[in-house]
């Protein structure tokens, strides 16, 4: 989905509103269509530097359970994506928090490479480079960049989804771009550290 399509007045956004309202009225076709449209975006958002594909899928499943449980809190006529991303964002944070506690109990990070079959080195180089670069940004900046760039949300929608103001979102995005520039400038041999 492009950024323009995500604007609340676009036909795509209007269609999402219609589907969401129908989902609230227990329309199964609308629910299935909403799932089909939103899930890839959410999976892309939930996948990140420290999440594997299976973990992202688990988060997506958890996220849908939360969306379903909270569907009555969607206000008809209001933009759908900020509502969805606000819930997805908290799903991700809660999952990472839980995982961190589990990892702390189960494995120390140094041992992970020797245990798992799938490490960063085994994955596609481009993807590893990508995450290596983005992972160096603070979590809040990564989140804003992902919403603005990957999900195509507007500043206003990103502010709603993150529970902050438009000014704060602009500032975070600005700082993230600045940091990315610095990272690229400092990367030895044109590769992120």
């Amino acid at each position, binding site marked *: 989905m492009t950024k323009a399509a995500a604007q609340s007045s676009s036909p795509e956004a209007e269609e999402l509103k219609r589907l969401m309202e129908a989902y609230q009225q227990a329309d199964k076709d609308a629910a299935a269509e909403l799932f089909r449209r939103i899930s*890839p975006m959410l999976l892309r958002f939930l*996948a990140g530097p420290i999440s594997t594909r299976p973990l992202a899928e688990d988060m997506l499943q958890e996220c849908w359970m939360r969306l379903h*449980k909270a569907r009555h809190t969607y206000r008809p006529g209001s933009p759908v994506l900020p509502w969805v991303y606000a819930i997805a964002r908290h799903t991700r944070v809660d999952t990472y928090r839980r995982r961190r506690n589990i990892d702390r109990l189960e494995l120390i990070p140094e041992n992970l490479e020797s245990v798992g079959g799938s490490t960063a080195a085994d994955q596609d*180089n481009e993807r590893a480079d990508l995450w*290596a670069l983005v992972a160096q940004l603070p979590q809040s900046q990564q989140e804003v960049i992902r919403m603005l*760039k990957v999900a195509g949300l507007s500043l206003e929608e990103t502010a709603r989804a993150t529970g902050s103001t438009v000014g704060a979102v602009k500032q975070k995005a600005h700082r993230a771009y600045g940091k990315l520039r610095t990272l690229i400038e400092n990367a030895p041999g044109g590769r992120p550290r």
Partner: protein
Amino acid sequence: MNSRHVVDELVQASQAGAPSLSGKLRGHLEQCASCKALWGFLKGKTDVDDLPPELQSKFDSVVLSDLEPAKPIPSARVLAVLFGAVFVTLSAAFILMSGISGAQAQSSLQLGAVLGVVCIAATALAVWLSREMIPGSKCLISPASLFTMICAGLFIAVLGLFEWQQENALFSHGWQCFRAGIFATLPASALLILVLNRGAVLSFAVVGAGAGLMAGLVSVVTLQLGCTMTSSPHIMVGHLTIPLVAAAVGYFIGKAVPLLMARLS
């Protein structure tokens, strides 16, 4: 190519509906892994576009199988009025129980200023809490700023308008008011939680702090009208610490809720 120009062009291209890159930049991307990675990220190019069939079947079995109509939550405005009604009703009930002898011991300016600050604070908290119940609501002010302004407003009003008198039994008198105030805070908290339960609260800790603060304001009103001691140290120790303590307790309970939910699940 200068990295600043590269990043700027990549960001601009990603913002365009149909991204296109100059030949020079495309050549650069062939050689530079970092910029290529950044471009992939900005375009949202990941390998997660295909959904696993298990997820679809899980969605079908859990969501679609017993899909029932869900009545949309009332608007944030209605919810804010509901919070306000809880605040006013409980304050009135406790004032009826404790009396208004304290009001006669204060000047109209003192009474008006403290009650004014409390009413503004309660209104702001009601609006904020109502928005926290609806995910993706517009954020007008950060919770940290809101809480700071409320606490600062109360302390400044008390310090500026009430006389600073040394008290020998500051803490014992303060403790009596504190205990009575906590009694008023508990039912207020319970009712606020009941209202909050109708929405989908995402940040339990912050909302817990906000609810605690609002419940604490009920006791501030009650004590301000019922307590005859008008020295600023007493009001700060015996009255104003209640919303602070209630906010802290609410925060920690809110922190514990997700952990408990995770354990139970």
